């Protein structure tokens, strides 16, 4: 059995089994005469919706709006998160001042801020950007802090032997030593920012974006459009994460293949 599992064709077919079963089940539910035909859409209808959304340019526009929203939030939250993480790891005073606040605010689920932020900033892009930035901020702070706080003392001693200035110490030791964890933080931040983007788009529901389209389609009972938007958000998330994995491998090539 285990030997059979090593065969790549067998492995591929096995991996395909569950999705195919799910699709068959879905199609059966979506039969036009079926009791649940309203809650499901036939594969034909979904394909038609895809063609329509793609042809009108709405799909591309939605994808770009959502993506740029997530990336903007990632940049804001990520840069600020790195700065705060580095400051907390390098200064016990900053750690004492900012640490408890950071760790208690972090306990509030992200979307829990939405009512308050909506009240302050309205239901527009500002509120969404703030939530998405916050989503990216948390994991970046946490991982950057861990990375910088645990740089090995033995490397810092080498810096002392060669009379490193604080700037040289940062550039040649602290930053590269912390980089693997910082990049882990960025990858988590991206996943969080993507959740924040789609989530706020669905909940605030104005303007455009994949989430907005989902919310509108829900109101219009267009299951086919919802499915297309869900697939698009999944594929986009996968694609951006993959780019990040490739970047990480390139940046951390000094780690060697075993890590």
């Amino acid at each position: 059995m285990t030997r059979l599992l090593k065969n790549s064709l067998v492995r591929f077919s096995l991996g395909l089994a569950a999705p195919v079963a799910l699709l068959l089940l879905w199609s059966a539910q979506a039969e036009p005469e079926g009791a649940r035909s309203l809650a499901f859409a036939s594969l034909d209808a979904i394909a038609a919706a895809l063609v329509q959304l793609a042809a009108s340019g709405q799909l591309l526009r939605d994808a770009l709006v959502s993506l740029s929203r997530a990336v903007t939030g990632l940049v804001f939250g990520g840069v600020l998160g790195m700065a705060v993480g580095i400051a907390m790891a390098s200064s016990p005073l900053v750690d004492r001042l900012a640490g408890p606040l950071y760790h208690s605010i972090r306990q509030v689920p992200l979307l829990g801020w939405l009512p308050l932020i909506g009240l302050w900033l309205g239901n527009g892009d500002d509120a969404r950007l703030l939530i998405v930035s916050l989503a990216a901020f948390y994991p970046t702070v946490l991982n950057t802090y861990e990375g910088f706080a645990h740089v090995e003392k033995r490397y810092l001693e080498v810096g002392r032997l060669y009379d490193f200035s604080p700037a040289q110490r940062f550039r040649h030791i602290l930053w590269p030593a912390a980089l693997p964890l910082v990049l882990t933080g960025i990858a988590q931040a991206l996943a969080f920012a993507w959740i924040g983007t789609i989530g706020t788009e669905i909940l605030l529901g104005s303007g455009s974006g994949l989430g907005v389209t989902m919310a509108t389609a829900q109101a219009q009972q267009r299951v086919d459009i919802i499915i297309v938007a869900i697939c698009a958000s999944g594929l986009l998330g996968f694609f951006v994460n993959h780019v990040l994995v490739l970047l990480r491998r390139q940046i951390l090539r000094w780690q060697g293949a075993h890590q």
Partner: protein
Amino acid sequence: MTVQPHIAPARPPATQPERGALTIRNLSKSFQIDGAPFQVLRDINLEIRPGEFVSIVGASGCGKSTLLRLIVGLDTDYDGEIHLDGQRVTTTSLDRGLVFQDHRLFPWMTLEENVGLALLNTDIPKHRRAGVVAEHIALVNLTGFEKAYPHQLSGGMAQRAAIARALAASPKLLLLDEPLGALDALTRIHVQTELQRIWMQQRSTMLMVTHDVEEAVYLSDRILIMAPNPGRIRRIVEVDLPHPRERGSAQLHRLRDEILAELTGAPVTRSLIPFPAKETHS
């Protein structure tokens, strides 16, 4: 290895100013362990001449590594005095290099970047630095591996690279803290030979801590035997044999047995069959 009875220093001492004279007077060091002071080193007195190769052997916990950390300036909390060429040691300096047991090359940098780090704060002009780096990589026979990352080097190569980095800044005094301790027996012998060649070529003062009495006897002009609790110098042995030395020489073996006996407290027995060197920890 060819036998050469007496070999002149690679550079005549006249062209080089006397440098690398280490003087240690009444050095003591204590740690606080659970609130109680624990003396690691007591009353160390030592003079090392410029260009001399001195080894320190002794049981674990006799403060050998602590002594090196004090001399290099990584730890400055001590009683007594440490002077290098008349200057009191107060902090780390490019005058004093240190090779650790673990190579401590930065894994995120290539070999040549690692060696180049040692030159960052020297007054060697920028345009000459690449040449100095290449020269020192060649000195430890690693030419061709300039672009390799540390994980791509074997243990022996990485340790030679660490020696190149330490020498690149031309320290007056090079301290070696069990530099070959983590290497397998064959690699260790190979790097020992390299180290002897490098020292003969550079003639900088070297002070090495080692567990390996044979290594100490092979490389050193003098050997300090230290005793633990508290760490102190028990005896200083002169190895009055010319370099480069013949590893199989009977004199070296006799000296090794004598020092091992001193360390283990066993009587010196002259056996016809030489016993393999054994290391014991007290």
